[in-house]
């Protein structure tokens, strides 16, 4: 049986001035000033180019982006439920496999890209994402991580950091740190259980060339790939709109975010600081951590210290989970 094989080789970008000028995520949307997710969307779309289909599960990048009659997508885009982006993407890819095989559509297999928030990736969307990875569909699943359910009014998600003040984890006398749980690790969830996946990377809006090259590498790979992109959210994290990139950089400098690629079982690091700054430097700029006491910040530092040893090594949570405490 003939198989539609992707032959494209999107070239890597050397310098920021070589970034293509064409936009496939154009102005006209309604995201907040300083929106990290919108910034990465623009970069991802540029990197992917015109032969692309985006699947957009419910989340900020649906609700604030895709308003009727002024959607920002210059390539095909379809809304999916927050639950099922991975499955819908699987169907789109499968359709193109069969349509190309039967000669009903001519051209290179399109880049099928899921643009999911943290909830749509590793919370309610986890099952569909895992199904897509397991079955080996030639599609890229992006988790744009703004570390909360932001469009519904900043509720905790599985990637919301320990100690964050969200509307579901408000600090109070009984629960002084706000969020007591430590986050899931999305790339490790993908790497750990999906042998069909050959390329996984983390990226950040602070490093656009690195981000775009990871998109292109992921799209050049045949089979399912995953990108976890750090996207500061001024509204949810409570910082000034002008500081999105600064916050993103500080995350990397403090070890709160690690930039790496995982390719065929090998890890490679990017923009790894020679010396890490204390997490306090990152946290003090954000209102969501303003209520924390020294002991809480120390717990966060211990968590990050353990995590920095290497990606893929299980991190022991420095505090017992709430159920164990009870």
């Amino acid at each position, binding site marked *: 049986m003939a198989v539609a094989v992707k032959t494209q080789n999107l070239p890597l970008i050397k310098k920021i001035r070589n970034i293509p000028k064409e936009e496939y995520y154009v102005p006209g949307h309604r995201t907040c000033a300083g929106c990290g997710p919108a910034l990465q969307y623009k970069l991802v779309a540029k990197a992917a180019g015109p032969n692309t289909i985006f*699947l957009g599960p419910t989340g900020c990048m649906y609700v604030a982006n895709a308003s009727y009659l002024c959607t920002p997508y210059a390539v095909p*885009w*379809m809304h999916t439920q927050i639950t*099922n982006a991975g*499955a*819908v993407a699987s*169907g789109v890819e499968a*359709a193109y496999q069969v349509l190309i095989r039967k000669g009903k559509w001519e051209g290179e297999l399109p880049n099928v890209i899921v643009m999911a928030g943290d909830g749509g990736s590793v919370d309610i969307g986890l099952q569909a994402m895992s199904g897509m990875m397991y079955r080996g569909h030639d599609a890229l699943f992006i988790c744009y991580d703004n570390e909360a359910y932001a469009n519904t009014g900043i509720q905790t998600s599985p990637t919301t950091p320990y100690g964050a003040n969200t509307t579901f984890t408000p600090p109070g006398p009984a629960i002084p740190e706000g969020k007591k749980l430590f986050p899931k690790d999305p790339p490790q969830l993908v790497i750990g259980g999906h042998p069909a996946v050959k390329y996984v990377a983390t990226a950040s809006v602070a490093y656009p060339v690195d981000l775009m090259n990871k998109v292109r590498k992921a799209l050049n790979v045949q089979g399912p790939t995953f990108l976890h992109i750090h996207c500061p959210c001024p509204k949810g994290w409570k910082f000034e709109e002008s500081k999105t990139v600064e916050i993103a950089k500080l995350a990397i400098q403090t070890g709160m975010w690690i930039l790496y690629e995982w390719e065929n079982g090998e890890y490679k690091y990017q923009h790894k600081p020679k010396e890490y700054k204390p997490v306090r430097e990152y946290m003090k700029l954000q209102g969501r951590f303003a209520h924390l006491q020294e002991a809480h910040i120390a717990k966060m530092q211990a968590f990050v210290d353990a995590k920095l040893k290497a990606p893929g090594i299980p991190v022991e949570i420095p505090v017992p989970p709430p159920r164990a405490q009870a």
Partner: protein
Amino acid sequence: MAKEMVLSGCAASAQAAKMAKVEVICSYPIRPYTALMMELAKMVANGELDAEFIYGEGEHAQLSVVLGASAAGARVLTGSSGVGVTYAFETYSPIAGGRVPVQMMIADRALDPPGDFGSEHTDAMSCRDQGWLMGWAENPQEAFDNCLINYRVGEDHRVLLPQFVCQDGYFVSHIPGKVLLPDQSQVDEFLPPYTLPHPLDPKHPVSHGPQIRPDQGTIMDLQRAQAHLDAPAVIKEAIADFNRIFGRDYSPFVEEYMTDDAEMAFFIMGAHTMTARHAIKHLRSKGVKIGLVKLRFLRPWPTQEVAEALSKFKAVGVVETSTSYGGAMRGGNLLHEVRASLYDLPQRPLTTSFMAGLGGEMVPLKDFYYMAEILSKMIKEGKTKKTVHWVGFEAEA
């Protein structure tokens, strides 16, 4: 050459899907519909059917996979039963509202609790108001035919609606019956290749399903409702063509059996129609003037056809194989729609409903005789005493 075979409903549906040249299939196991997927999996493995066979990770994923594939331009099929049908519920409105004409074969199964393999229409009936075309097959032949008819109607650009193509679990899905398999050329003449006005195609970028404001919602609901108003004409065309090409004798919406001089009738859909026909033959031999009216499409509901068919009787017994707990009739849902269809008539028949075959129980001949007795009594008394009769569970009628 067309050939006659003996096939179960599931096997017949699989043959129909193969002849419809379905391109993307998404499976997940649940009894009894699973047999459909097992047949299709064999066809793909044997190279008889060139389709992508995707193992969904659940029914919600099944519907999501075929939504994506259909929106990208492939003819698709999925299916389910019982709690599988309800697990996927979130996807039904987006698929119908997005006007993506996917086909889902439902082989009915009772909903939990507790676990029960038996057939009951409640699974599919619970999803009836999402905008899908919907109807039941009485036997494997009709299951085969309905697959093709629904693709033709649902994919028609004047309609563009997904289709629940239902058959009773076991009674149809697993009991073999005669099926006339047509020539591929007949199917090709009846069913044009699948096209979508605006598929997800990088050569012609479109956005599907952007966020709207509340004031933009009504028009979309109206359009979905309009598609159901436009569908009947397309169904009539399709049935006329189907009858011509395949030599069948279907009525588009309601079929009548022994109704010519009948005073009373059963109103029924699906597998138990077959038993009802036998019961009617027997009752006729005893001089009881009874017939039946079988519903072929539940959605769109053929209001006028139902009214016309039922208005000539003195009493109508609606055979319900689904529940509507706490509903106006205290029984199932069909009587609600039947009564609504009759409301504006100057002369209405007496109507009641019979809860029968719930949990997958057989509806034997004696149950139909019992129902006929109640209808006779209603005519004699000139009134409807009860709107619901739980057949086999009532001390007095």
